[in-house]
Structure formats: structure tokens, C-alpha cells
């Protein structure tokens, strides 16, 4: 059985590092893993996505509509955008963080501040976490991704590998402590 996780956010939010940690951890758990990301133009402040699939036999690396078991969003409105990729019954984790896109910054379009309510009306399993805010309190918004990693490990039931050891090995040495605290905060949230 293959599981699919779609990570979405805004260029520059650190989706790549957590997918790296995830692929290493999932491989250690004995799964076949494929990870797919898009580089290039979209990184300039556009919507970005990383896709991870794991299981016994994984073929296609990318995720189509209604194929994701989990969507994890680093930004509220991106969770809305990614919704059609979630399968019915899947889990959606989103940060409450708002990052305004250019049409909102310039006042041409309005930001969907009610995104969480919209999501909760439609999806049974919505987990809302204040990852960016928590990370900022712990020392740097850069640890937002690791807060989300903690929440994801819990929600997908991926215990069985020492995720904290992986985090320690893959973040800058002077940021280890903060990131471990971030992981715990994400894991224990809600």
C-alpha cells in the first residue's frame, strides 16, 4: 500500500529540508520512497509543492488530484489551493500563517482569512497548528518546518524511527536545540 504526502507552501519556506528528513526516515523504516519537487521559476515567491510517496512498491513520484493521504501546508491559503489533491478521508494539516501573494499585497484581491473555517466545513480531519508562531517563540521562524514535521509524524503514525536524531543531523549545528524543541512542540500540539 502506497501512502502519499503533499507538502505545499510558498517559495523559501523550507519545504525541501523537511522532505529530505522525511525521505531518509521513511527509508530507514524500510519503505521504498520517492520524493519529487519542482525547482525554478516558482521559487520566486510562488506556490511550491513537494511530494513524498512511500510504501512497498512506489511507482509514480508525483501526486494527482484526490491522490494524497495527507496534505501539509505551510501557509493557510495554500492549504485551500491544495485541497483538490487530498483524497476523501485524508488528513490536512495547516499552519495558521498567512503570507500575502502579490494580488493581495497590491489590494486587487482579498486574502481568505476564513480559510480554516472553509477547510473544516469540508474536510473531517483538519489539524491546525501555529507552527510559524511557535518557531518564532523558540528562536526563529526557520524552525517552522520542523514543528510541522513533528505534527506530521504524529498524524501519520510514523513513530519507529529516531526522527529527532535525523533532525539533529540535518539542521545547522547551532540550531539543533531549537529544532529539537520545535519538533517536540509540533509532535505534542493539540
Amino acid at each position: 500500500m502506497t501512502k502519499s504526502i503533499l507538502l505545499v507552501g510558498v517559495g523559501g519556506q523550507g519545504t525541501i529540508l523537511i522532505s529530505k528528513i522525511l525521505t531518509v526516515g521513511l527509508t530507514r523504516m524500510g519503505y521504498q520512497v520517492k520524493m519529487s519537487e519542482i525547482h525554478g521559476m516558482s521559487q520566486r515567491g510562488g506556490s511550491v509543492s513537494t511530494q513524498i510517496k512511500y510504501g512497498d512498491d512506489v511507482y509514480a513520484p508525483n501526486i494527482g488530484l484526490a491522490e494524497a493521504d495527507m496534505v501539509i501546508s505551510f501557509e493557510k491559503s495554500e492549504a485551500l489551493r491544495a485541497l483538490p489533491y487530498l483524497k476523501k478521508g485524508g488528513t490536512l494539516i495547516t499552519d495558521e500563517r498567512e503570507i500575502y501573494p502579490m494580488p493581495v499585497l497590491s489590494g486587487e484581491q482579498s486574502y481568505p482569512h476564513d480559510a480554516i473555517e472553509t477547510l473544516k466545513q469540508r474536510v473531517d480531519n483538519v489539524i491546525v497548528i501555529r507552527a510559524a508562531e511557535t518557531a518564532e517563540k523558540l528562536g526563529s521562524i526557520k524552525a517552522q518546518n520542523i514543528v510541522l514535521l513533528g505534527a506530521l509524524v504524529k498524524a501519520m503514525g510514523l513513530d519507529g524511527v529516531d526522527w529527532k536524531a535525523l533532525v539533529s543531523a540535518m539542521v545547522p549545528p547551532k540550531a539543533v536545540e531549537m529544532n529539537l524543541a520545535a519538533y517536540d512542540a509540533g509532535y505534542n500540539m493539540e
Partner: protein
Amino acid sequence: MHMEMLSGNEAVARGVYEAGCHVAAAYPGTPSTEILENIGEKYKDSIYCQWACNEKTAVEIAGGASIGGARAFAAMKHVGMNVAADPIFTLAYSGVNGGFVFVSADDPGCHSSQNEQDNRLYAPHAKIAMLEPSDSAECRDYAKAAFDISEQFDTLVMLRMTTRVCHSKSLVALEERKNVPVKKYVRDPKKNAMLPAHSRVRHIYREEMLKKLEEYSNDCPFNRVEDNGSRIGIITSGIAYQHAKEVFGNTADYLKLGLTYPLPHKLIADFAKKYATLYVIEENDPYLEDAVHALGFINAIGKARIPICGELNARIIRDALLPGTAQEGYEPVADIPARPPTLCAGCPHRGFFYALTKYLNKSIVPIGDIGCYTLGINAPLNALDATICMGAGISSIIGLAKALEMQGDTRKPLGCVGDSTFFHSGMTSLMDVVAADANVIACVLDNSITAMTGHQDNPGTAKNLMGEPSPMLDIERLARATGINPDHVRVVDPLDIEAVHAAIDAALNVKGPFVIITKRPCALIKEVQKANANKHCVIDAQKCRGCKQCMKIACPAIAFEGGKARIFDPASCTGCGLCAHMCRFGAIERRGE
């Protein structure tokens, strides 16, 4: 055996290394860039590698290495192969001395490209062998085998990848580097100098070699049948194989093709004849399907149901071939604001494009090119009218000037290219401008890096791919070397709006070519980021009158909320001060100088 999680690009670099390759060159282009980056980072002790000015020179560098007896490699994105097609088509006749393999990385879905051309069609056109890997393990295997195929059949080998193969990671078993000595260079003009008399002979030879290659293709382990005892047959290659497996699993039989030019016609016919239900699953053009139909299997279903346009995924194939079997999902939410890519906070191009807005629809027609600055076309700047391809930002304005003149339109075309694009092909365009005495403004937006593809060095950065210092080519001196009137070349800071205006005014006041070079490094270059670390702007809410003047520069660090502007993202603000320049009420101040 050491296993590593590698992207397709990393795996190709590994395969090239393991194959004992000696010389590698490329021009950066998404989705191919990381191949040469990896060779530079990990294997430069074994492989001479360099960023070339463009894809044509990259292939020529590799071509010379191959003639000289070294194993040679080049990489490019799909549109780069158009640039490199000239040497490729002729080297195809010559064949190789040292094996010659190159990557064409196509971009179905146009994630970062101006078109989604299917470069598989180049292989029969150029008469060269083609391999199509479908995951990272195959990327390594095929890249490695390609050098042997190249030498065995005296042919260039194209490794055709696509975005999802390039940028997906899966496990690869690493092997040792083969020790392949450089072959002796021997003068052989009948093989290596394609004069008409030689070419005619080599063409006949090439056709004979293709027949031998086709025989090999029928037996090649990369072309294999997966027999699951099904009544459904699927012919597929590349990433489409993975999608097909995802949808049909073991409920279909597969002919999985890895060596896709020359196609294994016998193998295809033997497979196809067994199935009443026969699918050809491939991305973009019906390359395989046309061949299957030509063999008489008109029952084969492909593009009649699977879209030609856009990137495929398993869901799209499921809907096309097994309608009604997809999982249930959720309807899209309406009215989500779009999130288009934008020029970064502190981007030097922003100042230049804002300065242009004063002249739009009045005295200039602005034309762009390929790079970060293409984003100047978006609202609210709307500072570009058209883009074609690398270098066209300067050459196209020559013809545009004539067309405007012929219809009595007095506006002057202004074309812009970046520094890397100037070295790529903008330089020859500028020579055309000067030689034609064209009445145009040619601009080079020099941000001291090849930015869009992720900061690769170029001839203007004084550093090469091997990490060594290199001579710095000076764009101003190159421009002046064309012999253009010395008063018609200006170098300005793009964030100095008055200076840009003065330069454009000067250009509009003269007839004939005028060159404007804007110089300021990309805000994301590490040293620049360090220098700007403490700089940022603040907006005094008391003084802000809500006139939205500062919103006209489309800076992602500024938001307009509740009738006031504010610095929305101070962390990304570099304190460039362009917004302060815009504010008529002195509400914006730069801090941390």
C-alpha cells in the same frame, strides 16, 4: 553496496562519473541545471567541467573532447537543444572517438519554460541514439551505459529526461568509477571534417549504423517485456512507465522501452500482436504511438484519450483509460488569490522596470528575454510586452523598430537581457544592432550571476564551476568593442531611478543604437545578503496617507491593509529604499545603514 537517495539529475552526474567521463560542459537551464552543478561539486577531481556560454558552445566543447579521444558529456534543457542543434546534427555524421553523451531535459507542463517541446523527435531527426530513463536508478544506469553505446556504435547518445525524472529522488546503488583512458587523438578528416564530399559518405555510414543500432535495440536489456499474463498490453517509456504502473500495477503486460531511438520495431510488433487492448502511454507527443500505428497496429490507443498537452500523472491516465475508478476527492475552493512568482524584495530589476513605466505607451516598446527579469511582465509593473528566447530581447527589437517605423509609430523599441543571457547569445544580437545601426535601446540588466536557475557562475562572475578564479569579462567593454558611438553607452544603478530616467532620455534623444547597462548584484547572493542583513525600511503609519504609490513597485515585503501601507515582511526587506523613493509624504525611512 552503498545506496543513496539521489535525484535524477544527481544520478546522471553519478553515472557520468562512474562511466569514466573526462570532460563535461553545460549551460544552466531548469530542469537540467543540477547535473553539472553536481559534477562540479563532487567529481571535479576526475572530470574537467565548465559552464559554457550557451548550449551550442557546451556541445562543441564536448564535441572537441570526443574528437580528441576523451569521454565527453553535455547537458541542457529542452529549448537549449534548439540552440545546440547545429553541432549535434553534424557531429551525428562524424560520430565519436571518445564516447559522447548529452542530456536533453524536457519540461512537460512548462514548470519553468517557454514551451513544452518533446525532444524525443530530435533523435530520428538528428539520427542519434536515444535513451529515456524513468527513475534515478535508471538515470545512473543509462548514463553509464550510454558511453559504451556511443563508442560501440560510433554515435552521439541523447539521454532524454523530463522534469519529474530530473527532480524526483529514489535510491541508487553507487558503483566505483571505471578507469577509462583517453583514446589517442588521430587526424581523420574523412570522419571529423564534414565537407560535402565527406558528409555524403558519412550519411550512408550513419544510416548503416542506425540499422545495427536497431538490431541492438531489439535485444537491449533496457527494452523489456513485463509479462503478467494479462490481456491488456501497454507500450510506454520514461516517466509515463511509472504512471502506467501506478494505475495498472500487475493487471497489464508492459513493453517498457528505455532505448527509444532507434525503436525496436521487431520487439514492438511481437508484443503488440498479442493484445486486442493495446495502450501507448507517453507524455506530450505521440512519438511511440505513431511508430506503433505505422507498424500496422492501428488498434493501439494513446493520444485519442491521453492528453498531448501538459504534464501527466497517474490520475490523468486513470481518468483517460479507466474512467470512473479514481478515488473521491474534494472540489476546488473558489476565489483563492493567485500566487504568481514575483521579483524578490530588494531585486535590482524592480528599480529598472519601475523606471520604465514612465515611458510605457508613450515613447518606448519594451521587449524582454529569459531570466528572472521576465517577471517584469507581470502586473502591476506590466513593463514588458513580449519575450521569445535567449538573446531575442536584443535582436528582435531590430525588426520591431522597422515594423513600427513602417506604420508611423514613433516609439523606440527597448530590449533587455540579463548578464548571463548577454553572454549566451545577447552579444551576437548586440553586434546585429550596431551593424544595422538600428534605432533601438539595448539594455543589459547585469546582476552579476545566473540568477533564475539558482546562482550559477558565468563569464562575468570571475569564478568558474571548478571553484577557481577566472578572468572577468566586462560587459561594458564588450559593448564598446562593437564600435558603437562611445557617448551611446551608459552604465547605471537600476535602483537609482533618476539615473535610469536620464539614460533612457539620452537614448530617446539620439537616432541609432544606444546601450544601457544596469549594474547591481542579485539581492540573494550570499555576500549581498550579509551586507544587507541589518538594513530594512520602516513605514510611519502616522505619515502614510494611503496613496498606494509604494504599491506600484510590486515589492513582496510591502502590504496595503486598512488604508495604510506597511512593511509586511521585514525579514525579506533589504532596505533597498525604492519604496522610500516612491513615497511623497516622507513616510518611509531606511534603517540600519
